[in-house]
């Protein structure tokens, strides 16, 4: 079974925010929530500017899953980290723990009261029946169930953002690095997926 991962090639990202728009369009995300964002380092400095598109990385040892007080997170067979909004109490712990700032909360009342957490689903929906109306209303599109890859990566104009089987996208990136001759840093992979020799978390396992 494939292990789904995201990879953003900093040499290719042009900060068009197409992925952000594609995600919003595809999933009809709640108001005030951005499941994906593009961050530019050294903005406006010629030669030093680098852009990265970031969302939930679907970590192998996901911190959100570890700190959730109601254990509402689960990992699919494809390594996608999803959560159950019916269980979520909106405490904000996953948002504290996440390195990438993925979990977000639509405001549910006065004084910034948090609603149910919302985050990138790798376009894989949620615990509801695949492609059901309820699933779409709570989690957005389930493209994986349709045999498609995440909308953000599929929409990327420069193919900077890759989403899919970790082995396949790593191979694509390796070819690019070989062509360029230098620069093999894949941003965020160490944090999200651990060292290459580290054993992958068992698929579908709760931690």
């Amino acid at each position, binding site marked *: 079974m494939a292990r789904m991962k995201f990879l953003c090639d*900093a*040499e290719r990202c042009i900060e068009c*925010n197409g992925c*952000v728009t594609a995600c919003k369009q595809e999933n009809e995300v709640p108001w005030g929530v*951005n499941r994906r*964002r*593009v*961050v*530019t*380092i*050294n*903005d406006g*400095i*010629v*030669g*030093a500017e*680098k852009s*990265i598109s*970031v969302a939930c990385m679907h970590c192998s040892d996901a*911190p959100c899953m*570890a*700190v*959730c*007080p*109601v*254990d*509402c997170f689960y990992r699919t067979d494809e390594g996608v980290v999803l959560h*159950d909004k*019916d*269980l*979520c*109490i*909106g*405490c*904000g712990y996953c*948002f*504290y*723990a*996440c*390195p*990438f*700032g993925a979990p977000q909360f639509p*405001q549910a009342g006065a*004084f*910034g*009261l*948090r609603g149910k957490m919302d985050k990138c689903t790798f376009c894989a929906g949620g615990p509801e029946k695949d492609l059901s109306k309820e699933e779409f209303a709570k989690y957005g599109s389930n493209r994986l169930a349709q045999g498609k890859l995440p909308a953000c990566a599929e929409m990327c104009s420069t193919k900077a953002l890759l989403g899919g089987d970790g082995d396949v996208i790593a191979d694509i990136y390796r070819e690019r690095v070989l062509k*360029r*001759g*230098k*620069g093999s*840093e894949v*941003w*965020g992979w160490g*944090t999200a997926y651990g060292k290459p020799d580290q054993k992958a978390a068992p698929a579908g396992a709760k931690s």
Partner: protein
Amino acid sequence: MKPMVVCRRLFAVAMLLLPLAGTSVAQQQETQQQRAQSQPYNNAPTWRDVRSGKEEYTSIKGRETGVLVQTYGETWRQLKNSWITPIAGWLIAAVVLVIGAFYKWRGSIKVHGAPTGRLIERFTPFERYTHGVVAISFVILGVSGLIMMVGKYVLLPVIGYTLFAWLAQLSKHSHNFVGPVFIVSLLMFIVMFLKDNLPRLYDIKWFVKLGGMISGEHVPSGRFNAGEKVWFWSGVVVLSLLVSASGLVLLFPNFDQVRAVMIEANVVHMVSAGAVLAMSLGHMYLGTIGLDGAYEAMRTGYVDETWAKEHHEYWYNDVKSGKIKAGTAIGQPAAPQAQH
């Protein structure tokens, strides 16, 4: 650790500190620019910059949206899951066991002399109501907090996901709404009982004998004994104020406080709440089943003269000599007549 590794680590630390010594952000960006020319595709300086967790440019509006990666979340996770939650959880469980064993051994501490039937007012109605609000809100906060902290390990396997999530949601809401009630009543409580909890010389003697709790010996004390004073200053003043202040940081996430601040507040909150909960169990035990007459004093405000003499002799003497103005049940029909 091998000396070589130590050297390498020291070198790494020195290299990390180097940019702090005098190089500005503009200079750093310049070096990154130069690096891009001299070593194309080697973005190591850029990723080091990202790793520092500083805010970069993004068109997405919001708090910390420009931070690509934050590393303290993982530290917090380790602290919370491997240290704070298990230690606080087991500490509270251990205190319950110790109190249970003590009760079995010693039983309820009885009044030795016969009750005189004459009652002294120990707490005014206003003091009692304030204590009641503090106590009830404290218990609600404690139970709901424990459900959210250790419920995942203790309750969830027993009652299942649906019911537990419902309970946790209820806990979160009660925690949020009862919290401010606790804080207001706590501040009133502290002001109200501050004077009588100031340390006195005779408290030292009480400490040495632990109030006669083990030996059963009689040790005189003021309106509050040294044990109550310790509970007041450490539990009520220091720990509860810490819990309250950190709780306010967590309760209002709408003031644009960043994750690092909320994480720190959460650590302070969990540690001080765990400590104050463990301590409170001792106070609750003595206020209910542990000490005969204490619950009635809290509930009705009146104690029998014998009880006052045996537990708070100096206070009793002051009341008797008229140094402290305290109402007596005589001539007060509203006060409860039957005691014991």
